[in-house]
């Protein structure tokens, strides 16, 4: 005998729900994921930039500490132009070379031939000058490897496209110049003359930085030189360069070059100098510029590194550049 058992499933009265999602549910999920990804993507980019900026901070910190160690050793800061003596026919070199031993690059310092006829631009110094030292390079700056071609010697002022150089984004301020103030020019921390270098004298001592080391800029960023940008990181047309010779001949922008300049104010669009803007308007002649959104980093004389916002008061910035003006530096 066969018993037919008819099992009555539970909830038999309810309509059986179909397996899987409806189109609407799927779309809702996709839309939510889309929004979340949309929220996250800029955050990821911002986090990556934050990481690069911290590395940049660290570089400036190393440079600032190296300056202190140099001062401990030689009782003065390095001279901005001549880090190493070249005898009677000097080719300008940089403070960066002078502090190499303090940056644990003694081998590079020893390998450098200071008496080469063309100094930093001499073929025999290509091994050193062509080193890409990460401590002088801000990772935020878009660069593609070494700088190809540098100015060759100061007398003929020729450009040698076959030489290479490791890039550098950090400069020291020769002065701040802006006719909106009186005096229109005040000299920067490492300059021992009135507006320039006095080679007959030793470098600046901490004791002559009477504004206080924590209120004086040692290094600032002029990132990307000689790739000249203006507002919004847009490349400048060569016809807009203020000092085309230094750009065309790659006078700066590599760590072994002189890496110092006056800082000038600019208009916000980065086209005319002597305007209301001091940070991130252009890296053209006289511009203080970084690729960090919202501001630029500086190393101060006390070894600290500060992020200066683009909206910094022009007078505060000027007071930070000056070393002995007795100006009151406000909040920054």
């Amino acid at each position, binding site marked *: 005998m066969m018993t037919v058992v008819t099992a009555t499933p539970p909830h038999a009265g309810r309509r059986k729900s179909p397996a899987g999602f409806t189109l*609407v549910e799927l779309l809702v999920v996709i839309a939510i994921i889309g*929004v979340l990804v*949309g929220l996250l993507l800029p955050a990821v980019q911002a986090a990556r930039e934050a990481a690069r900026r911290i590395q940049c901070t660290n570089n400036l910190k190393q440079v600032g500490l190296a300056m202190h160690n140099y001062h401990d050793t030689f009782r003065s800061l390095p001279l901005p132009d001549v880090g190493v003596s070249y005898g009677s026919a000097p080719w300008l070199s940089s403070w960066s070379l002078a502090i190499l031993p303090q940056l644990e690059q003694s081998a590079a310092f020893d390998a450098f031939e200071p008496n080469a006829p063309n100094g930093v631009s001499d073929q025999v110094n290509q091994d050193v000058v062509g080193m890409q030292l990460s401590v002088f390079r801000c990772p935020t700056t878009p660069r593609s490897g070494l700088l190809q071609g540098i100015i060759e010697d100061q007398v*003929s002022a020729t450009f040698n496209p076959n030489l290479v150089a490791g890039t550098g984004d950090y400069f020291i301020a020769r002065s701040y110049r802006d006719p*909106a103030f009186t005096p229109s020019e005040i000299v920067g921390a490492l300059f021992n003359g009135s507006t320039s270098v006095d080679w007959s004298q030793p470098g600046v001592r901490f004791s002559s930085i009477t504004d206080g080391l924590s209120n004086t800029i040692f290094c600032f960023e002029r990132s990307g030189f000689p790739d000249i940008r203006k507002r919004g990181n847009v490349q400048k047309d060569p016809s807009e360069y*203020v000092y085309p010779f230094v750009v065309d001949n790659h006078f700066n922008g590599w760590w072994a070059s002189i890496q110092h300049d006056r800082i000038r104010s600019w*208009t916000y*669009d980065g086209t005319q100098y002597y305007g*209301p803007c001091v940070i991130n308007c252009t890296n053209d002649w006289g511009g203080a510029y970084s690729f960090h959104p919202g501001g630029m980093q500086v190393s101060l004389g006390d070894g600290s590194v500060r992020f200066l916002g683009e909206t910094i008061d022009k007078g505060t910035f000027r007071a930070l550049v000056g070393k002995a003006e007795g100006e009151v530096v406000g909040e920054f």
Partner: protein
Amino acid sequence: MDPKLPTTFAACAAACLAAALAGCGGPAAYDAIPTHPASGQVTVNGVPAKGAIVRLYPKSPQPGAKYPLMPSGKTDEAGVFHLTTYEDADGAPAGAYTLTLEWPDPAWRPPGGGMPPPPPDRLQGRFSDPEQSQFEVRIVEGENDIQPIVLEDVPILEGSSLSE
């Protein structure tokens, strides 16, 4: 199912995304006082001065500006300039100004060779000092046409020319 529903969702998602992204970035704002468009023309020895820099120095403090604003402009091929205070051709704040003029020559090279200095003034600094400038300008509300600056018989820097 309402066939419009997926479209509505997509629109909604797009709107949310746009709203989320709109919150980021954008240029940092700065304090600005009102400016009025101003333009003019520079002619030196009968030639339109291309690349000359015109700069206005205020004669009295500008209300609302913490530091003196010095509107400037660079001339084009026709010698025409548009003043910039903050950005682009935004002009100048209203008021009385002393106008200065310099005409850098980027092609100038030292006669004896060597590193060229920052482009020297073809007009040899004759018109670049606001203390001695003869040019006076008043900027008023609305469009400003600055009286053409016509310089005749001006000695030009040796090694420089009126063209380029």
